[in-house]
């Protein structure tokens, strides 16, 4: 099949499919949109093979679902696809040396230390 890189992305159904309404991707928070965009940008820049990310996403979803089952208070309504995506991306970044544990934590602390109401 001759199709662009987009076609290997984002299965429309199955466990790793992102939430959609009438075919449109659904984002509930800006960070979800951002991590999605960063992943695709990095992919389109040729930095990783999509199946490597896909595999990590499958693993992250399995871990997440197991955690939900263990905690019936939150139940399935606590399912957070984009949190899984973030976990998968973080694992990929770690593996490629783009974001070591230390550098990521340092950066997170720096961002957390910003005064409230900062401008993004």
């Amino acid at each position: 099949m001759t199709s662009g890189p987009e076609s290997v992305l984002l299965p429309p159904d199955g466990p790793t499919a992102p939430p959609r309404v009438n075919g449109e991707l659904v984002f509930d928070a800006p960070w979800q949109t951002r991590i999605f965009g960063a992943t695709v940008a990095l992919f389109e820049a040729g930095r990783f093979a999509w199946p490597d990310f896909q595999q990590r996403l499958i693993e992250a979803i399995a871990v997440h679902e197991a955690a939900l089952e263990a905690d019936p208070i939150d139940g399935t309504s606590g399912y957070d696809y984009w949190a899984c995506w973030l976990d998968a991306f973080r694992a990929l970044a770690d593996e490629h040396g783009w974001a070591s544990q230390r550098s990521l934590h340092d950066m997170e602390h720096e961002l957390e230390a910003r005064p409230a109401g900062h401008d993004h």
Partner: protein
Amino acid sequence: MSHDENHEHEHEHEHEHDPRAIRTEALERLLVEQGLITSAAIDTIIERYETDVGPLNGARVVAKAWTDPDYRARLLEDGTAAIAELGIGGPQGEKMVVVENTPDVHNVIVCTLCSCYPWPVLGLPPAWYKDPAYRSRIVREPRKVLREFGLTLDDDTEVRVWDSSAEIRYLVLPERPASTLGADEEALADLVTRDAMIGVARIDAR
């Protein structure tokens, strides 16, 4: 992010203290610092997926055609131009032909050679559309395939299968549900599904 971490932060309502938002921003900064991507590239991709492409565009076209007979006529006459009237266009939509379903004729689209698809009005194609089984079988035995999609056609309804060629991209104008007589354009657009605009489903009023 572990489940417990989520829990700990539930009381914090400020968006900027959401640990997932912090982590995302930290990752983006690290990637940009290393020159692996730019924030502008991320913006471009988000815009493409979130606003430029998607079946809601096609739904707007269909709803307008249902409510505006002049627009419907223009759409069937020159799909590309009528779709462009709504500010919709772009790659894979340069030469659009709209085919209208009627009680006597049912249209369905396919690309037998690859997976050509009208991106500007429908977004990216679903997996089954790209599947070799759909691409070959919808031409050979359309009624049977449509039944598998849950769409049973009357025996006297003619089925027309439109195979996207090198340039032409088709869009199905589905039949408007009879029970939606008083509905406005926006409410109608909500009813229009991607599958109906491919031609593998009917539209039901909700």
